């Protein structure tokens, strides 16, 4: 029985090639691995090996032929020389690529759950963001034996920013683990442990250092569930301070929110106050998906009310209207929310009523809450402690163009950090970073005042 030898595709993009040279002739015996021909593509000359054993019966495409299409029968091989006079009917031809049908629209986003109601009479306890994060981790570690905390100085030193203070005493060195300074290594170790069934909380001393580990956050953690067809999960939390701190220079001052928010497969959280920090950290640790949890060093020491309830867990993917207003909507996240709230206070004194929305989750973005607010105010200002180019601000502006263009009475505006690496000098740093006055000025412009 004859086997058809077809013009092979030697690269993912090859469609045709030149059959430069035959290295066998009719009647030759070949075995697996023997070079049969040289084929030239626009990129390289490749040798074409035999896969089956047999005798070359007929050479159908002579050497020197150009433009031979992939899949063309170029020779016949039989188990003996007399075997190839009648080619067998071709095996099932390569399937013709289906006409590129337009992909169906993505499924509608699930309706975001509202925050759970806090029962009347619940005590509110003044708590720093730092303590709230620690309490969230401790509660989840008590609840789930699989949860462990790993990072640089998280155990004996009690955390470079003291976020993990006390955890070592509570849970011991098996579950609170100091690492060497080796971000790529321990981020990968964490991702592998999550694949193996644990619930790692990986602390980066700051997210600037996570650049050394970003491959594992994106290629290992975010893509695994999809690449495996839903078979292999990576439930992990990467957490640490993000954004500008105070005069620590360009390499230690950057907001990575937009970077991670651009990656399908990740959850990205960036809370503002202590109650959200706690409720969202608990949700992050319980999530089956990989979470990037962006904290802010300048917020750690600030105190907010946290409800004294047993299990304060907040929904992922749900923004919060922090102040209601009617003239414009100011959208922000993380430390920017405080700037927006200060600005709203100043604007109120001028008779401008600003609604302030805290995104809390950067991926998936709660666009419904933003658009609902815009429908009311018809003006949108985005405040972001981070660079303007390819930012959450630019993404939201696009979302509004696509989904709520008719609700806009004015172009969307933004207040972001200056488009420069963050300088050290106090005056230059101040000038580079957002503040309430910059927001007030843009808000006036937006409202034609």
């Amino acid at each position, binding site marked *: 029985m004859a086997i058809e030898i*077809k013009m092979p*595709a*030697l*690269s*993912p993009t090859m469609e045709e090639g030149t059959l430069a040279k035959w290295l066998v002739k009719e009647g030759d015996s070949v075995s697996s*691995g023997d070079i049969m021909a040289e084929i030239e593509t626009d990129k*390289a000359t*490749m*040798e074409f*090996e035999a*896969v089956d054993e047999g005798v070359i019966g007929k050479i159908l495409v002579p050497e020197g032929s150009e433009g031979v299409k*992939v899949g063309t029968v170029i020779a016949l091989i039989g188990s003996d020389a007399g075997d190839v006079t009648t080619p067998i009917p071709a095996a*099932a031809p*390569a399937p013709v690529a289906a006409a590129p*049908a337009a*992909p*169906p629209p*993505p*499924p509608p986003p*699930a309706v*975001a759950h509202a925050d759970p109601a806090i029962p009347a009479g619940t005590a509110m306890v003044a708590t720093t963001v730092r303590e709230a994060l620690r309490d969230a981790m401790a509660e989840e570690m008590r609840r789930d034996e699989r949860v*462990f905390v790993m990072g640089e100085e998280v155990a004996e030193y009690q955390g470079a920013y003291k976020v993990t203070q006390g955890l070592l005493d509570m849970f011991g060195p*098996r579950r609170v683990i100091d690492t*060497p300074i*080796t971000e*790529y*290594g*321990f*981020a*990968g*170790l964490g*991702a*592998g*442990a*999550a*694949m*193996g069934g*644990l619930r790692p909380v990986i602390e980066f001393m700051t997210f600037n250092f996570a650049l050394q580990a970003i*491959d*594992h956050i994106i*290629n*290992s953690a975010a893509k*695994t*569930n*999809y*690449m*495996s*067809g*839903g*078979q*292999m999960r990576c*439930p992990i939390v990467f957490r640490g301070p993000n954004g500008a701190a105070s005069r620590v220079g360009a390499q230690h001052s950057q907001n990575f929110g937009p970077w991670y928010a651009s990656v*399908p*497969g990740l*959850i990205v959280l960036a809370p503002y106050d202590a109650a959200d920090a706690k409720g969202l950290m608990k949700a992050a640790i319980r*999530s089956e*998906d990989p979470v990037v949890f962006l904290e802010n060093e300048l917020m750690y020491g600030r105190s907010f009310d946290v409800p004294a309830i047993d299990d304060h867990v907040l*929904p992922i993917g749900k923004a919060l209207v922090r102040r209601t207003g009617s003239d414009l909507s100011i959208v922000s996240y993380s430390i920017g929310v405080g700037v927006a709230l200060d600005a709203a206070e100043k604007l109120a004194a001028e008779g401008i009523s600003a609604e302030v929305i805290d995104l809390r*989750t950067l991926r*998936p973005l709660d666009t419904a809450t933003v658009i609902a607010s815009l429908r009311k105010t018809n003006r949108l200002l985005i405040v972001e402690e981070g660079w303007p180019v390819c930012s959450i601000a630019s993404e939201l502006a696009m979302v509004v163009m696509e989904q709520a263009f008719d609700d806009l009475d004015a172009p969307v505006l933004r207040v972001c950090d200056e488009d420069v690496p963050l300088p050290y000098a106090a005056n230059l740093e101040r000038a580079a970073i957002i503040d309430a006055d910059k927001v007030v000025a843009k808000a006036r412009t937006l409202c034609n005042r």
Partner: protein
Amino acid sequence: MCGARRHVNLGEGDLAAKGQKSATAKPAKAAAKAQGAVLSNREKPEAHGRYPADLATMEAFYREMLLIRRFEEKAGQLYGLGLIGGFCHLYIGQEAVAVGLQSALDPKRDSVITGYRDHGHMLAYGIDPNVIMAELTGRAAGISRGKGGSMHMFSVEHKFYGGHGIVGAQVALGNGLAFAHKYRDDGGVCLAYFGDGAANQGQVYESFNMAELWKLPIVFVIENNQYAMGTSVNRASAEDQLYRRGESFRIPGVQVNGMDVLEVRDAAEKALAWVRSGKGPVLLELKTYRYRGHSMSDPAKYRSREEVQAVREKSDPIEGLKADLLKAGASEDALKAIDQEIRKIVSVAADFAESAPEPDLPELYTDVLVENY
């Protein structure tokens, strides 16, 4: 040429120049001796030899290696026909490594992770060839439902954790699997494969450090097939005896003839015994050879045809085991029957992979996240 030859040296034996027999027992001893000379004061795993396999075990190894060989040849063919796209890295020539190592594992508790040249490791685990081939052709019936492809296949059920496309990343991930074994105290060991190319990645050394520091139950396996894509080991590695790469982390290293499945199996047992006894990681360097290009689109101009042919003729792992089998009393007919049976399995897998339907378009949007938010 002299430089190009050096990397096929196996201890003092030369894989390409010497026959199967001399390339087995002798280099193992030589390597053990060399290791002793360097670090005589450090404890190391018991020296390995050749695994004393009975006829049935040898036949099982033969069957598994042949399945990988024929499967990969067929995959190469299907690639040539345009049925497999993208990157496709074949395991032909390296079969003894996955078969020898994985046969020594306890599948109930041990885990395996590797890079993108992963078809052989899955087949060695007894995973259905149909679903592997269907993944290569990008069909819904593929083991990753057509969303992973050649480089991204997983079977959590078999504790096979992929299938990773970034060179060296699987080593850090493997450390995490080992960490999970230790954390749960489940007695499992992780086998983390990587190539001679990955052995130069920084995260591999970050992983070595933590693995030894915390005595993680992991066997680091360098599949040294002599070429990182087109760059030979000695053009890329200041220390080209890769089994020594763990020394500064106090990880014992063992060089193994990766073309002899029985030597591989014995080295695996010794390494696993070391790791299971709580002594921390072991580094195995498996000297092997890939007959095909790095991927399907590799014209392989960086080595001579003679070099490839010499290995095929003198050190082929399947031919080597076949000789052992015949010597041990197996009949030519029995081996032929195995060959025919394997060809049939592969042919069925190819037919299945060609005819199975592509994923439904709505699958584009599934599995991005596990939960709904």
